[in-house]
């Protein structure tokens, strides 16, 4: 029996954040280097790790994080190995090297607490999406982990004036320096119930990348669990 299971043992730690398989994140925790993770995303830990849901500082920043869209975070500190996952979603680990990324709130799994981050609202979209889209912009030197339902695809926006249009439900992350605007593709037909199913998109233009997932399921499973 052990022989079968032995293949799933954790690999030796080589970096602060690593993938264990495609769907699990392994974080090497260390005192003084705290981690902010989605509430409820912890599946296992080894060592001495403490969790502090919604620490005051975070609450301050997330004051305008709307309850409907925001993703509550917890602060993890201590020494050990921490394993995070989000209902079998693929985990993508990014080592920020002074650059920045803008992540959809539901697709954020964890990031180093010392990174600069802030919650912002995507402009221009709320008026017809009805809900608005909230995202977290993270920058600095450190590690970020995203989730994606299925293996994501990274598309280069090309840098020119051409726009790349994304279904907001499939959007995972993008470069913050891209210009974002909403695009509706309503037509008169849609009003009589003959829409194409693609009512509105987000249009990105400029120099940067867009990450999309192969699923239009943007439900926040970690929140549903409560």
């Amino acid at each position, binding site marked *: 029996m052990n022989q079968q299971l032995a293949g799933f043992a954790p690999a*030796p730690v*080589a970096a602060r954040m690593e993938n264990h398989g495609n769907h699990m994140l392994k974080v*090497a925790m260390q005192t003084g280097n705290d981690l902010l993770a989605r509430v409820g995303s912890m599946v296992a830990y080894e060592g001495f790790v403490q969790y502090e849901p919604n620490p005051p500082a975070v609450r301050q920043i997330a004051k305008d994080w709307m309850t409907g869209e925001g993703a509550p975070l917890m602060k993890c500190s201590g020494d050990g190995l921490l394993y995070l996952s989000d209902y079998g979603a693929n985990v993508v680990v990014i*080592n920020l090297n002074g650059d920045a990324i803008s992540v959809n709130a539901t697709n954020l799994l964890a990031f180093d607490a010392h990174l600069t981050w802030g919650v912002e609202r995507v402009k221009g979209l709320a008026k017809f999406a009805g809900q608005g889209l909230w995202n977290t912009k993270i920058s600095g030197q450190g590690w970020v982990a995203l989730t994606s339902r299925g293996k994501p695809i990274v598309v280069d926006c090309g840098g020119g004036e*051409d726009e790349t249009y994304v279904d907001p439900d499939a959007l995972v992350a993008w470069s913050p320096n891209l210009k974002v605007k909403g695009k509706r593709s309503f037509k008169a037909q849609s009003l009589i119930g003959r*829409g*194409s199913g693609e009512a509105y998109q987000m249009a990105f233009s400029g120099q940067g990348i867009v990450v999309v997932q*192969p699923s239009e399921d943007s439900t926040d499973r970690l929140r549903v669990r409560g």
Partner: protein
Amino acid sequence: MAREFQRGHKARISDLTAGTDLYVGVQITGPGLTFDISCFGLDGNEQLSDDRYFVFFNQPKTPEESIQLLGAQAGDTESFRVTLDKIPPQIQKLSFTATIDGAGQMSQVAPGYLRIVAGGEEVARYSFNGAEFSTERAVMLGDFYLKDVWRFAAVGQGFDGGLDALLKNFGGEVAEEEPAAAPQPQAGAPSFAPPAQATAPPAFGAPAAPAPTPAPAPAPQPAQGFAPPPAPTPPPAPEPPVHAAPTIVAPMTPPGGAPVPPPAPAPAPYGQPGQQQPPYGQAPGQTAPLPPGYGQPQAPQAPAPPPGYGQPTPPPGYGQQPPFGQVPGQPGAPGAPSPYGAPQGAPQGGAGVAAALQSYKETPTGQRWTQQNKKMVRVDLGMGGDQAVLARQGSMVLYQGKVDFSYKGAGFSGRIVGNATGQEMQLMRCSGRGQVFLADNSAMLHPIELQGDAVCVSAENVLAFDETLQYEVRRVEGHGIPGGALFTMQFQGTGTIVVKTRGVPVVLPVTPTTFADCNAVVAWSAASQVIVSSQVRMRRNAYPGDSGESVNLQFRGAPGNFIVVQPYEV
């Protein structure tokens, strides 16, 4: 840690180990069966052009001794020594095969494996068992093949004939009937180190770092067994360390016995540091004293352990992780502020967003339909004619360029038919110029290119297709089907259709006895004939509300037809 291979997996050998002098062990057993395990050295055309490179019990080595048969040892039914550097250039592929000597078939074999050992450490293992085979009498277990660099592929493909047929398949000739000699176990192993030997000439374990090793040479070196590791502690710790830190709840307590890595107080929960103990995950029957086990510091994915992490001594047993309570500056982790410290070095492939996402880049353009990954497909509108694409409504995740999405109605008659048969598709029409990325709920996508032929797909499994294809609802008749008949969509013409499945599907060739559950079958080539065979299945009866009767479809047709079945009964 040995990397586990599944059937079909491939890897560069340089990714597995920096060594090129490899030990290949095969364990294959079965009740009452005897096996001939041999290695074919094949040329670029996969032919055995030189008989001297057929290594088997009658010819235990090649002329320059690049491949040697070593006999049974260390739990392996048969073992080889392969020196990749010495293999002559005309040999492009080494195929390791096992054939049954006498009566029997491959489905009877017990679980076995093919493993690669380098420097006393197991680096790869492909496990198989009899359930993967049926009546075959031979099996090609794995290949070493040269494609720029030497690579290993776990093949696991059965072969109907015996050794003779296998030899003929590779273009060889059976020189004489029934070679008489029994496998001669080599008396006195040659001067290289199979895993059973603790001492070996250092040449074998030396990580020569062959050409395109992605890892910097020093990184894998500690894992290479025999080279003296730069760590202060050699693996055979003569006495068990005395640890003062008994539990992990007291992380700041420095362990008393300093340099030995694993936190192993006397009743060690996992992994004794003693050498004689087979580590966790090792079969007790194996006697390898330097067991590759479970906790080697070299991970295949992480070729360059950053400083501070590298416990360069391979601690036996489980404990490759540094102890929780190790104090900074201990010899085990030089320079690291803490054992779990975030290494500040760049990860593999470099730092930054662009580097981290490199593996998710979109694939280059070139075709009208391009599969991006298993779950996403890109269609280039405007390439290969200006025809539009019909796609399931809402399946667009991203597009670039000027693309117009419009409602595609089925027409009046189409709606009547659709309502009556359930074969209704909610489609949108994508036209214009640009690239559209399509995906649906993480389903796996399979583009099928039709060239005048036809395929039947259940409507709910269609993601998108070229507008040039004609489609119609087809009826599968048969008594016993709930509702009287079963309907499917038949697509015909020239173009591509993208079929989606939940989970990895199985594509079965149509044979005289091919059956499928009508709830799980996704598609079949339209040239095969479908017959309904009903039977009562107890499992279905167990569900309340179900009709209690399920329908199996039998497929018949000429060779070349196929059916696609998904692991999900809708």
